């Protein structure tokens, strides 16, 4: 199994429990199952308290089938920084796996399955604000489909392109979409 140096955890095939949780999560957004993809996991350096224990969340990467053989041992003595696309970070809470989607998961859905449920489409003004890290206000919502099962929705622009992820927040007479992560984050993060 390839290993990484300098204290970076190795990239390993994700455990079945996590893959199932991920596939169930993906069902919130599409009926199709992504083909030709494998999922690899790496423990992060971040530590967090989970009751009396300390846990390390797990970063999940999705990679093309053809790349899978490399990670099964064809690349020895290598510090693997990443493989495929970073699609999620997973925490364990009260014994259950909690999935935080990353922008890569939105791209995965777009390229491999299409997004047919669990989305909100926003108008141009809403798109601008969302990409600057703001929430989506009710007047910018063009269409909202699903979102009840997972409470997280893919935020799409009027062309159907993913802008990021949001959470539905219900008020007395309206709803708005709380910004969880948006595609403008990369520019703001400076990386």
């Amino acid at each position, binding site marked *: 199994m390839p290993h990484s140096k300098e204290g970076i955890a190795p990239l390993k095939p994700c455990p079945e429990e996590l893959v199932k949780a991920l596939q169930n999560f993906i069902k919130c957004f599409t009926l199709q199952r992504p083909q030709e993809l494998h999922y690899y996991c790496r423990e992060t350096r971040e530590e967090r308290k989970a009751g009396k224990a300390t846990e390390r969340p797990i970063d999940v990467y999705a990679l093309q089938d053809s*790349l899978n053989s490399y990670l099964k041992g064809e690349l020895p003595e290598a510090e693997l920084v990443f493989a495929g696309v970073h699609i999620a970070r997973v925490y364990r809470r009260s014994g259950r796996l909690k999935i935080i989607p990353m922008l890569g998961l939105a791209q995965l859905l777009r390229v491999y399955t299409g997004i047919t449920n669990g989305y909100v489409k926003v108008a141009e003004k809403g798109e601008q604000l969302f990409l600057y890290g703001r929430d989506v206000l009710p007047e910018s919502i063009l269409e909202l489909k699903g979102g009840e099962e997972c409470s997280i929705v893919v935020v799409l622009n009027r062309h159907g392109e993913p802008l990021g992820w949001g959470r539905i927040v219900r008020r007395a007479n309206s709803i708005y979409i709380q910004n969880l992560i948006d595609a403008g984050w990369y520019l703001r993060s400076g990386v």
Partner: protein
Amino acid sequence: MKTIASKTTVDQALKELRDRLTSLYHKHRLRAEKLVERFKELRLHPHQASRYLEMMDYKELTVMLEKFLEEGVPKSIRVNTRLTTVEKLAKRLEEKGVTLKRHPYIDYGLIIVETRHPIGALHEYMLGLYTIQGPASMLAVPALQPRNRARIADMCAGAGVKTTQISQHAPSARIVAIDVNRRKLIALKNNASRLAAFNITAVRMDARNLPKLSTFNQILLDAPCSGEGLLHTSKGRWPRSLEDTLSRVKLQLELLTAAAQALADNGVLLYSTCTISVEENEYVVSRILEANPELTVENPPIPGGTPGITDYAGLKLDPRVKMCRRYYPHTDGTEGFTICRIVRRG
């Protein structure tokens, strides 16, 4: 058995270069100093000017330097054809006040003629519909002809502009991106996500150790270089001394040596730089051909450019480097760039 250039060969090459380039400077010194003065905004080193005087005739040289001076190299973008089409993207950008024209050589390239907004700040960039890439730089990957299912190494991947281009050409290839700089590989990770490239794995290591990793059917070596092809930018304008040239050549020889050793039979090695210096292109390729008789140079399957230089400063240059391709601002409207396609016969 593969023959590789030894440390002795690298040292010999550097010694030869030092001797020849020192003589060259003495040959052209007076004209070089006048050139430096005439084009002082380009911040040429007199040694650098003497090399240019040896490379091309004076009239053409001044035309080229004028082109660099007027910053006559446009910005360009590469359309991510995995997520959109050139026509759809062009229409959207034009609606946002960007004036575009088609890249003369690449069907998924667009030249930015004029824009109201920084081209890296538009939503379409954030959503991965395009990425910013120089017009000649965009030619290196098509010259490699990436194949699906192939094992492909990008030896000095940086933030992955060309790595993601390889993925765009061959979404089922097995791509290994290599760089010593972790921060650049983190940027590559973000670019892979933004551009939906699911077949890249990134390894942090010195690319001179490539043979320890694996053999590869195709290798891209877009080598660290002096960047003389970027004289149209303010960052590209700094005086390149003899020592600057020699230090780049040393690294390029070591990288090419590693690439030659890691290349599988019938494999393709695409060597490219953003410099017009003969020392960093035809000369280093000639040394690698000399040390590896099973390697040869092929014509790259890309349009434009002019042939590689085979007669320069009395250096022994392999005649096959004529099949390298040079791009200049005054002949192609691009940044200065050089591409050599090297193959290993089976």
